[in-house]
């Protein structure tokens, strides 16, 4: 705040009259720009410009070598909507996001609670929970891919030794099973962030609220659903929105573990987009898919915010 006053005085010094002149008023009005400017530039360069570029590309005719051959209007979009695989891929993406986010949120509510409790070695456990977050997602996915390998995977070894199965199972070759395993990996890498947001949320709840509840004779169950959960709403909101966006756009897990195959049986919109560009050599159609993807995520986040009445949180 001090800086603002200083700046305002400097601007005033250059004005001739003591009464606020037009120049000074403009100066005052523009002052916030100095502070907002950098972030506005940042948003324009890293967010708005790529979006504009993406939309522009989706309207172009681009040859397989990468040369722009001119305008194509909505042709890329009609091509995209003609793909037989589009609808299953979109439905799968929605299922993938819902499954991963819901599981992650439920588990992280429990983990957050655990991390908030006092017990010996809590610091160690907190660090351990961060590990999947610190490790590269690609690395985690590759490790799981090899753990689930048909020939040398440790999962098969353990199950064989326990006599739960009598011959190795090719886990990632069957679309449904592969999808479930990949969702598990996605939950695994999403948990740390979500748990820590929940933990932060738990720590903002004042102790006296709980005290009051105790005095009123509320049991642990009542306390949790009557106090903790409602007060955690902002934290849950933030964690799940960021989680939705991350999971929706998650490329490395699926790409490393199944490559979206066999066929398109485990593709989500993100891997499908990649295949359109680099297998089908159709950059324009891929950009159209990217625009559709972008709109889908926008709609999903808006619907979610509306459903959870975020305006109340902001006030």
């Amino acid at each position, binding site marked *: 705040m001090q800086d603002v006053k200083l700046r305002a005085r400097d601007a005033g010094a250059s004005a001739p009259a003591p009464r606020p002149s037009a120049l000074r008023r403009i100066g005052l009005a523009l002052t916030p720009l100095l502070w907002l400017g950098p972030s506005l530039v940042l948003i324009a*360069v890293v967010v708005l*410009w790529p979006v504009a570029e993406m939309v522009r590309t989706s309207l172009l005719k681009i040859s397989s*070598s990468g040369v722009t051959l001119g305008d194509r209007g909505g042709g890329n979009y009609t091509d995209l909507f003609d793909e037989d695989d589009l609808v299953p891929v979109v439905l799968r993406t929605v299922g993938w996001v819902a499954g991963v986010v819901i599981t992650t949120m439920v588990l992280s509510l429990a983990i957050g609670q655990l991390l908030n409790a006092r017990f010996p070695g809590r610091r160690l456990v907190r660090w351990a929970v961060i590990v999947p977050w610190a490790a590269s997602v690609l690395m985690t996915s590759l490790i799981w891919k090899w753990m689930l390998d*048909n020939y040398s995977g440790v999962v098969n070894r353990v199950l064989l030794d326990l006599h739960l199965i009598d011959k190795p199972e090719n886990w990632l070759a069957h679309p449904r099973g592969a999808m479930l395993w990949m969702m598990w990996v996605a939950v695994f890498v999403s948990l740390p962030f979500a748990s820590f947001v929940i933990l932060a949320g738990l720590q903002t709840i004042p102790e006296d609220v709980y005290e009051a509840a105790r005095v009123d004779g509320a049991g642990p169950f009542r306390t949790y659903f009557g106090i903790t959960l409602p007060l955690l709403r902002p934290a849950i909101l933030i964690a799940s929105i960021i989680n939705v966006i991350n999971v929706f756009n998650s490329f490395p897990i699926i790409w490393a573990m199944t490559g979206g195959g066999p066929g398109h049986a485990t593709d989500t919109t993100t891997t499908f987009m990649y295949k359109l560009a680099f*297998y*089908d050599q159709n950059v324009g159609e891929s950009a159209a898919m990217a625009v559709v993807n972008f709109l889908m995520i926008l709609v999903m986040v808006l619907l979610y915010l509306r459903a959870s009445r975020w305006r109340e949180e902001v006030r």
Partner: protein
Amino acid sequence: MKRHLIGALAAGLSVALGVSGCGKGSSSDDGGSDGKTIKFVAAIYSDNTKPFWDGLIKDFEAKNSGYKVQLEMVDWTQMDAKVKTYVQTKQVPDVLNYNAFSDFARDGLIYKASEVVSPAVLSDFTPTFTEQAKYNGEQYGLPFISSARLMFYNKALFGKAGIKDAPKTWDEVKADAEKVKRGGAIGYGLPLGPEEAQAEFYSWAMNNGGGWVNPAGKWAINQPANVDTLTFLRNLTKSGLTQPNPETTDRKTVFNQFAQGKIGLAIGGPFTKASFIDPVNKSLEFGVAPLPSKSGTEHNTLGVMDVLAAFKKNDGKNKEAVQKFLDFFYQKDNTAKFLTKEGFLPVTKSAGDVLSSDPYMKQFVDALPTSKFAPTGNPAWTSVAGAVKQSLGTSVAGSEPKKVLDKIQETAEKAG
């Protein structure tokens, strides 16, 4: 104070981003305007690739003072994305090492071969490869390395199953696979995963009179011979004679299993010994035989070729430096050194003589004259191959072979 610092950081960051962002769109190239510095993008074939090029470029720069070559190594998994970005942002290298060239030729991006190598080099290319490097009757691609495919079989497993010779017909393949399977191993290793489904399928289809195009050069992917081939492979799978789930198995998995002595038969190339078998078991007893055919009379080999392509830049100012560099690489000793290091086959007559001294390599060199290639001269081939990689494998799992091939045919006709 702290806020000040963050503000300054944000401003600095956004300026930096803005500057680098603007740089992306412009078509300026670094230092190439004098025409003596060229950029060469090379693919990584193995750990030997970079040291080879580093050495060769050093040698070249020493012998041609004033000329400079900037080397960029790109992994095959990233190559397609990189190349598209180069072209889109008008930052093409002067020389590119790639597996396709015809769409560059169609879009007028690259020189004709005769413009960038000396007549001596041009006439040293083996005619088979010159043919493959043509677009619309003109040679654009410069054959770089080649490879051929033959049938590998495990002699120990064959001995145990009481089989004497490698199979010559498809019926024998099936019978041998059954015998090997009875011994507890996998009969035939069938990789129809996205890595190289097109190569595996064509290796079978060409030996049944099938292929990608008809004699008139039009796409004929769903022709009866191909459906028949795919049905045969599907039957092998359904009878449990292959490894489980060929539709998700890549070539490297099959060859790791072969090297461990767990697979009786699999189709491999010259690189299979050095890259897969030797690291696992140098004493593995295996034989190499021609690819089996349905009738057993004629045995074709799958040929594969990678190319160098020289891009037009600065109104042709880079042509002289590019030619100097390419002529230098195509000297007999330099080419042969690369091929022996990487386990590939020659594309020039002079290097072929050097390589035939190795008996293992000789089998492949000898197979080259009967080899058939994918239609790489057709600019649509890359997208057809892409469609094959994505969906062909599903035909041995859930989908019907005919339907899968019909759909690929449709993609091919749409692509041109």
